[in-house]
Structures are given as structure tokens and as C-alpha cells.
């Protein structure tokens, strides 16, 4: 039932994306529309709805993103946009409430724990750095990341040598992967080739 509705809907979306791509004249907008067309293509693959077809989505996504990145670079060089902007974006909430939003995300991430928790907590840290600047935080992040890696290995040793303490190992591994992913996520977008690198 749902597939009969979803597949025609996605095919209409593909057609709309392609028509938009033909009509659009601005180069940057065309780049964005290209990505849109590609996502609808992935939706077709998803609606084939077998496990094997779903395994095609990830490579498709990787290919799409790599092409998008390559084309973005070509666009930047083509238009001569070499200097990074001083301030990417400014919203009022970035002045008024970075601390409470970042703290909320980090605490929720710790509650979630593990990989997804690390992503949420890292998003909180990322938001904090985005609002407040990121001058001296790299050393701390490197240290936390290093300890997280060591703890992760320790957890594996516990699994292999003393499997009866599996709960302890799971807790260590969950906490470590939280730290590790958080540290990695917090670095996203901060390396712009400035004085910090």
C-alpha cells in the first residue's frame, strides 16, 4: 500500500528536481539542485526496499558527496572565492543562549552514551565553539581523544581476557566512544587554515 503511494511520489520529485535543474541559470543554485536530484535517486534505491538495495545507499551517498565536494572546489576556484569569510553567520541566539543549549546537548549526549550520544554531545561542543570562538581548545580535545582511545582498547582487552566483566567493559567502551566521537565532532569546521592549525 505505502510503496504504491511512495514510489510515484518520489518519481514526481525526481521529475521536479530535473525540471528545476534545466530551468535554473545560477551556477550555485544548480549545484544545490544537483544534490537534490541525487538525494531523490537515493530515495528510489531506498524504496526498492530490499536489504541488499539498502546496502547500495551508503556507496551512492559517498560518491554523491565526493562529487559535490569536488564541484564546490571547482566553483570556488572558478569564481575566485579563495578567502574564507571572517564571520560565517550571526544569529541572536548565538549571543544570548550558547551555554544553555550546549550544556543541554552535552548532557543529553551523555545520557544517550555510545556513538549517537557522542554525536549529540559533539554537536553541543561544536555549537559552543561556533558561538564563542575556538582559540585554545585543541590541546584539551587532543588529550581527551587520546584517553578515549586508550580506554576503548582497555575495554576490548577486558572483553577478551575477562569476559565475565562484560558490563564494566561495555560501560568503559560506551563512555570512551562518547568522548572520542564528541572530540571528533567538535573539530568539524574549525580547521580553516588559520593560525590555529
Amino acid at each position: 500500500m505505502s510503496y504504491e503511494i511512495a514510489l510515484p511520489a518520489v518519481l514526481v520529485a525526481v521529475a521536479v528536481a530535473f525540471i528545476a535543474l534545466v530551468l535554473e541559470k545560477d551556477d550555485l543554485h544548480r549545484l544545490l539542485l544537483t544534490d537534490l536530484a541525487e538525494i531523490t535517486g537515493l530515495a528510489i534505491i531506498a524504496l526498492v526496499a530490499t536489504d541488499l538495495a539498502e546496502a547500495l545507499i551508503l556507496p551512492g551517498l559517498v560518491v554523491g558527496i565526493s562529487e559535490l565536494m569536488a564541484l564546490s572546489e571547482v566553483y570556488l576556484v572558478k569564481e575566485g572565492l579563495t578567502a574564507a569569510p571572517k564571520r560565517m553567520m550571526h544569529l541572536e541566539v548565538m549571543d544570548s543562549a550558547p551555554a544553555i543549549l550546549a550544556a543541554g546537548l552535552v548532557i543529553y549526549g551523555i545520557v544517550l552514551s555510545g556513538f549517537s550520544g557522542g554525536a549529540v554531545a559533539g554537536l553541543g561542543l561544536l555549537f559552543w565553539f561556533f558561538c564563542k570562538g575556538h582559540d585554545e581548545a585543541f590541546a584539551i580535545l587532543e588529550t581527551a581523544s587520546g584517553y578515549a582511545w586508550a580506554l576503548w582498547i582497555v575495554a576490548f582487552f577486558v572483553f577478551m581476557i575477562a569476559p565475565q566483566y562484560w558490563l564494566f567493559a561495555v560501560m568503559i567502551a560506551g563512555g570512551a566512544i562518547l568522548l572520542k566521537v564528541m572530540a571528533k565532532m567538535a573539530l568539524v569546521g574549525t580547521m580553516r587554515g588559520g593560525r590555529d592549525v
Partner: protein
Amino acid sequence: MFDLPIEGAELLAVEFGDIVDYFSVYTAVLFVFALLFTGLAIISRPEKPVDIVFGGDAYYTKEIPPEQLRFQRFMAIACGLATLGAMVSGDLFNFTLFSSMIGITNIGIVAAVKNRHVLEAAYQYGIVAMVATVPLFGGAAIALAATGTLSIWALAGAGAVPLLAKMFLVVGVMGEGMAPFYIGKAEITRAPGAPYVLMIHVSSLLLFLRVVEIALTV
């Protein structure tokens, strides 16, 4: 090997479980051709081109620093390797992945020339190549949904792959191998590093030849 006229005799099959990379007379010839041009991209030294004035006997030489050509050479070699993979791949999905890799490296070869017109052409081609991944992967996904396998070895001669999937595959490969048309527009063949542009033409030609074989086999 599949008792199909296009294949020729079987020379070698490399099995990875269900996925069988195969060298028939046809694919082996394409493979050797790609190998030859990859070798040319590795050993050629286009740093000292000679321009001849048309209609006269005057000529002048140019010196191009090797650093300028390094990226283009790398991309040309990567393109050659992707072509080698696409030629012998016995799996529809691997073939689509190699095709899109050829598309990306072709963008790289063109975009290595820092000239606004050439970059413009690279950009337009890139848009086409990106859009072409939709029918390319879509074709592989439909073939998979219809038959339950992606192995050309398993699908050969059965005629089980729907016509729509074959059409999508061909359209996708057309988009990925579209580069030579944009190259003519950009006149990149007169820009520094022109020999590497050969790789664009060779890879797209071989890709077309291979997709014809796949469409007739599955």
C-alpha cells in the same frame, strides 16, 4: 564463456564468491588498451610542449614546472586504474562505482587547468556527471530488485534484467563519460598537460564499449 557472440573465448575468471571478474577476449582487449594508456600517463613527460605556428615554419617552446602537472598526472593515473577496474568488473554495482570514479577523475583532470573557461567547462561537466549517478545507481538498484543479484556472471544470457534498468545504466554511463564533449568546448587540448587529456577520451570510449557488452550480456 556465456555462449554469447559478443564475448569471445574465456581467458581468465577471478572469483570473489558470487562476484566474478572475468577476462574474455573482448574485455581483455579493453583492459590491455586501458593498461597501455595508463602506462603512457605514467611515463609521459609533457613539461616541454612545442607550439607550431599554423601555416608557417615558426615554432616556439614552453617550459612548464612539474608541480603544475603533478595533480593532473595523479588524476590521469587514477582514471586509468578506475578504467582497468570497470573493464573487468563482473558485478553491476562495482561497474557503476568504477564509472562514477572515472567521472570524478575526469573532472579532476579538466579542473587542474587554472583557466576560467576550462574551469567553467569542468563545472558544467561535473553537474552532468553528478546527475548521471541517479540513473546509474538507479539502474543497478532496479536490476537488483528484479533479479535478486548483481553478478553479471549469474545474470548472463538469462535476459532477466528489465529493459528500464539497462536503459538507466546506458544513460548513466553516457553522463559519466560525457567529458570529451566538454573538452572540445574548452580547448583544453591546447592547454598545458594536454597528453593527460587523452586519458579522458580513452576512459569514456572504453566505458561506452563495456556498457554495451554488459547491456547485451545481462
